[in-house]
């Protein structure tokens, strides 16, 4: 970066002499008095093409007071007698180059030229101000390219309707733009290298109040702002002594002083002319384009609004720009969606390829014909048991053939299924059954609660009911006739747990699922040759994608049994045995599979991995890509929400993206579109993070029985018919239309007054070369004491990393984060775990993260259980030494990540603590502290 250019100003004037060249010569003779005049004779007249280029060259050439006078006066003398005078002056030397020009032309102005030590001192101060300015991190919303050395320029116009530029309104307009981009109403605008103005652009004030405050704001020392603004007053002809000088160009800086510097000038036409120069290291071209566009709109709005209008309501985007933003977010790409219900699509496949395998589960295979017929029988059973179209039917089954058949049967019966995971606590199951008002729950579970008015049936009972017509207290309604079924009917109601409060049922119609397949089928090349897995619980909507994605495109669905979903090596073996081609995984589960793949390679059959359900950190994917290159296996990261039908966007993860740690989740699927809005629901330009809103073909109907919540989250789509869903996810659009997902809005926690993004800390942990997976939690102090609250981080370390004991590695990772994060964001503890605990849905289960050992030693940790005796206590301490985190008396050694190597370490720790050893195989028999302690006692522990 040319710092000298940032501190120089330049002026070009066209000289007109009234009579001959005498006056000009006289005027220029003054130059000899102290300033060197450079004369360049230009072949060609002042109108020649070369003239502006030469003038530009002079105007953009800095004058450095450290190597010269810091001042340059050049006369470009054209062949036709015209001449341009260009003055370039460093701010340390001359405050206003116009004064110098006036003086040269004979006006009675004494330009205050500083020289020698005065200039050197001021130069040093200015340069130090620039350094302060440059130390500020580039604003993320600027979308700059770190390390880029180039400077961008963009001209723009500001509508002025023939009025003079209003510097206050311009500054106020920029304030509105910056408030929108930074997400805070307290804004700062740079005036020059050393000064800024600060004011509040709070949305609740009136235009008159706001303009008054901006007008009162005085420049104060400080160089924090990312954006600077200079407003130049209208041009004024200089001259005297027979010479007139018409200003051609005035530049308050030759290179952007601030990361983005704006100048706006009034040239007497109906629009003000602006010039935006910006360092690519801080601002991308698109950011500059949006920012200048918003500035022009905001200025027009401010100068035409009623004085009592609220500034929060002023538009920052013209209608055309709003449309452009919507298109950037994917609006307008709508593929043709078959007007078909899910079971109709499956039936179509069954008719087309009746003998193709549809479903495989632990050795049992159903063809499409078998699947269809069995589902028909089950549906008949459901009808006989009283299910009618429009009903909701609970399904609480482990992954099995029956599960899939029952789900299809429910749809065939014209009802919507309400999936429940048998692993859920009884209370939650009861709540779901009651809230969804299901008359029937199909389950094998003995422990399913018995809510009133809900009938529990086994899948086998459906078959029986179909066969003998028995069972129902409700007769089959015949008089009313079957209700016409429509793709607009609900297909399923999936309960999602919100961050607060009760789980809520999301009602998703058939049409949405058809749209999802229409949007992905072509791009993913889904067809009858594919083998899919059903890995996820039916209560997690990733399974909607797995089941109906497969069965409506004619593929073979391999039901992954419980044990295989829990053990990555066995799952890997299943993938190879079944020659699975399409795999859907959460990133956490995929990390474990990838780990297993490193030890024993997963076969080559998988050609598409769909990652979803959790934010993806792409960096750990590199090791998978090493073994499964892009051309053989495509990795697609899909951002999705239950309320928008599984997926919203898709991003193929390339090695390049993985190397760059890209957070892009890609463009919306055709038919889906996204908006990024601020908390007031106003549009944000690309680069600026806000809340992701999703519109289009995937938006669910509503929350069941929750009209208020539905009204809060499902809002009218501003650009398309139907609702848009307010996701609670933080993200930003990139200038190319891809979406970056930046975590949950409610993942923001507060620690000792600081607002902290847990996802940001997690991203830093993942930066550490040794870390393959990470999680961060805010742990409250004992008895909820906020002073004792701290951040605990958990990491999974690369097994081939520099070995050493786990604690030491954790500390290294902690120090790594301390290099990038402010002190209040550095985790208090970093605990290395063999794997992160996962929920049944495959997401990180923060509730099951162990207490860190460091934390357990201080008073803040709660005594979670009574320690029976001294042996147990000492044994537990030894375990904790080995694992590096707090363990419970009943924690299983192997479930904690123990192995024979750690067993050997445990023996060493016992020895060091003066405890007797034990034969290692005993550890396999007595896997907890509580059970191992008697073994030690038997060996004879000294009391």
């Amino acid at each position: 970066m040319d710092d000298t250019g940032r501190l120089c100003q330049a002026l070009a004037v066209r000289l007109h002499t009234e009579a001959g060249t005498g006056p000009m010569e006289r005027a220029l003779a003054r130059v000899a008095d102290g300033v060197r005049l450079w004369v360049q004779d230009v072949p060609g007249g002042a109108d020649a093409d070369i003239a502006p280029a030469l003038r530009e060259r002079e105007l953009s050439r800095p004058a450095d007071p450290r190597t010269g006078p810091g001042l340059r006066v050049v006369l470009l003398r054209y062949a036709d007698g015209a001449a341009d005078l260009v003055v370039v002056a460093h701010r340390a030397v001359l405050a206003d180059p116009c004064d110098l020009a006036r003086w040269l032309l004979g006006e009675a102005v004494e330009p205050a030229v500083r020289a020698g030590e005065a200039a050197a001192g001021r130069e040093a101060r200015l340069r130090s101000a620039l350094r302060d300015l440059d130390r500020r991190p580039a604003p993320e919303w600027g979308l700059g390219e770190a390390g880029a050395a180039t400077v961008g320029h963009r001209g723009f116009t500001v509508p002025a309707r023939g009025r003079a530029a209003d510097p206050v309104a311009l500054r106020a307009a920029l304030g509105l733009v910056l408030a929108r981009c930074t997400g805070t109403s307290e804004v700062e605008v740079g005036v020059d290298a050393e000064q800024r103005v600060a004011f509040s652009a709070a949305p609740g004030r009136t235009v008159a109040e706001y303009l008054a405050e901006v007008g009162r704001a005085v420049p104060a020392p400080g160089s924090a702002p990312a954006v600077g603004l200079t407003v130049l007053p209208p041009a004024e002809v200089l001259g005297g002594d027979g010479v007139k000088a018409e200003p051609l160009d005035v530049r308050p800086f030759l290179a952007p002083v601030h990361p983005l510097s704006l100048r706006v000038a009034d040239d007497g036409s109906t629009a003000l002319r602006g010039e935006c120069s910006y360092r690519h290291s801080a601002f991308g071209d698109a950011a500059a384009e949006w920012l200048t566009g918003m500035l022009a709109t905001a200025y027009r709005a401010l100068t035409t609004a009623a004085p009592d209008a609220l500034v929060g309501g002023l538009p920052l985007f013209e209608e055309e720009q709003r449309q452009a933003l919507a298109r950037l977010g994917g609006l307008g790409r709508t593929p043709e969606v078959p007007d078909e219900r899910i079971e109709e699509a499956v039936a179509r496949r069954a008719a087309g390829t009746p003998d193709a395998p549809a479903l495989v589960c632990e050795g049992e295979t159903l063809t499409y014909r078998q699947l269809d017929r069995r589902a028909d029988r089950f549906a008949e059973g459901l009808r006989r048991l009283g299910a009618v179209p429009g009903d909701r039917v609970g399904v609480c089954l482990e992954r099995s053939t029956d599960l899939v058949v029952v789900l299809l049967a429910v749809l065939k019966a014209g009802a919507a299924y309400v999936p429940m995971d048998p692993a859920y606590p009884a209370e939650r199951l009861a709540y779901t059954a009651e809230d969804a008002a299901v008359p029937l729950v199909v389950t094998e579970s003995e422990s399913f609660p018995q809510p009133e008015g809900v009938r529990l049936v086994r899948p086998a009972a459906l078959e029986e009911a179909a066969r003998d017509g028995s069972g129902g207290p409700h007769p089959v309604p015949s008089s009313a006739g079957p209700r016409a079924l429509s793709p607009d009917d609900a297909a399923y109601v999936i309960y999602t747990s919100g961050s607060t409060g009760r789980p809520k049922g999301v009602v998703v119609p058939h049409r949405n699922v058809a749209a999802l397949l229409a949007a992905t089928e072509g791009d993913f090349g889904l067809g009858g040759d594919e083998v899919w897995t059903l890995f996820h619980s039916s209560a997690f909507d990733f399974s909607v994608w797995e089941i109906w994605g497969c069965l409506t495109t004619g593929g073979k669905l391999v039901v992954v049994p419980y044990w295989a979903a829990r053990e990555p090596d066995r799952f890997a073996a299943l993938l190879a045995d079944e020659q699975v081609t399409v795999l859907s995984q959460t990133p956490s589960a995929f990390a474990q599979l990838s780990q297993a793949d490193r030890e024993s390679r997963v076969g080559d059959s998988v050609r598409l991995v769909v990652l979803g359900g959790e934010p993806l950190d792409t960096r750990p994917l590199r090791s998978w890509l090493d073994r499964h290159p892009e051309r053989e296996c495509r990795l697609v990261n899909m951002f999705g929400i239950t309320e928008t039908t599984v997926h919203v966007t898709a991003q193929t993860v390339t090695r390049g993206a993985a190397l760059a740690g890209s957070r892009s989740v890609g463009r919306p699927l055709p038919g889906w579109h996204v908006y990024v809005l601020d908390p007031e629901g106003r549009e944000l330009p690309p680069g600026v993070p806000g809340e992701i809103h999703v519109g289009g073909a995937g938006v669910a109907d509503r929350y069941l029985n929750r009209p208020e919540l539905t009204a809060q989250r499902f809002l009218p789509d501003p650009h398309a018919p139907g609702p848009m869903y307010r996701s609670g996810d933080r993200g930003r659009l990139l200038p190319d239309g891809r979406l970056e997902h930046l975590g949950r809005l409610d993942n923001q926690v507060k620690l000792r007054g600081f607002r902290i993004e847990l996802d940001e800390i997690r991203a830093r942990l993942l930066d550490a070369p040794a870390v393959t997976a990470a999680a961060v939690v805010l742990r409250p102090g004992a008895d909820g004491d906020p002073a004792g609250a701290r951040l605990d981080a958990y990491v999974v370390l690369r097994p081939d990393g520099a070995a050493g004991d786990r604690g030491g590695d954790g500390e290294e990772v902690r120090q790594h984060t301390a290099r990038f994060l402010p002190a209040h964001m550095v985790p208090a503890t970093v605990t290395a775990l063999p794997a992160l605990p996962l929920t049944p849905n495959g997401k990180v289960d923060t509730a099951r993260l162990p207490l860190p050992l460091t934390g357990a030693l201080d008073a803040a940790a709660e005594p979670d259980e009574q320690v029976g005796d001294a042996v147990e206590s000492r044994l537990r301490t030894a375990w904790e030494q080995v694992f590096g985190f707090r363990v419970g008396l009943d924690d299983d050694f192997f479930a904690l990540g123990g192995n024979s190597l750690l067993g050997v370490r445990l023996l060493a720790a016992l020895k060091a603590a003066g405890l007797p050893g034990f034969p290692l195989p005993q550890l396999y028999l007595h896997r907890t502290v509580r059970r191992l302690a008697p073994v030690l006692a038997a060996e004879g522990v000294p009391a």
Partner: protein
Amino acid sequence: MNGVLASPPPAPAAAPGTSATDAGQLAGKAAVITGAARGIGRACALAYARAGAELLLTDIGHDLAGVPYPLGNTDQLAHTARLCQELSPTATVVTAEADVRDLDAVREVVDRALDRLGRIDILLNNAGIAAPSGKTVQDITPAEWELMLDVDVSGAWRMIRAAGSAMAAQRAGSIINVSSTAGLVGYRHFAGYVTAKHALIGLTKSAALDFAPFGVRVNALCPGSVRDDGAAEGRMLSEIARSLEVPVAEHEETFVAAQPMNRLIEPEDVAGAALWLGSDGSRQVTGSTVTVDGGFTSR
């Protein structure tokens, strides 16, 4: 401040190494070339102009007592500047006359360059004399000896001394000292010249180490026998022939025969190497000696 806006500034210069052709290779760079009135200096100036550089061209502008042939004069310097301006109409090309033996004059040249061009990215120390020569070493007079060293070595040192701090402050730059094959091997009856050109390589290597921390590169360029080119008005070869008291044609023939590539060096050949050393294409090259001698010193 009063004023209006005109056209936006031009796009920034292309990133280093992106230009495949000479055009634009030195865009935005300012160069000072000594001995620019004719010969290799003129050829380099033209190459630099074609590559988009801003130029300050300097030469002595008068003859020197003790040098038995005419030196670059005012008209020749102006002619070089005019040719450069024609090649690059929007470039700033300024001239200054200075004797590189005069420290104040040298400083004035550098000040002028910094003042007018704002910076110095390339310093091409090309000024030098080939004669008085043609004597065995014991016959050289003290005045002849001192004159030769004063111009050919100390002249380059004076220029580096004057421009060095500004270039170091820029944290970038390229200094090119035009030495000779006489900086690498000896020639009979040319002890003064050979000594000076060898010394110039020593100066190059030391200066390269001094400037390396500041990102300024220093290299020596060693042309072999350069043809006296009509357009460049060079006369080195004929002066050497005259010093040796042999006909120019015979001298040329001797050199052609001694050159593995069997041809004399053209001034443009030297300019090509000087262009590369001045450009970012050679950004990791410093302290080196680049020969443009058709293989002469490889024998």
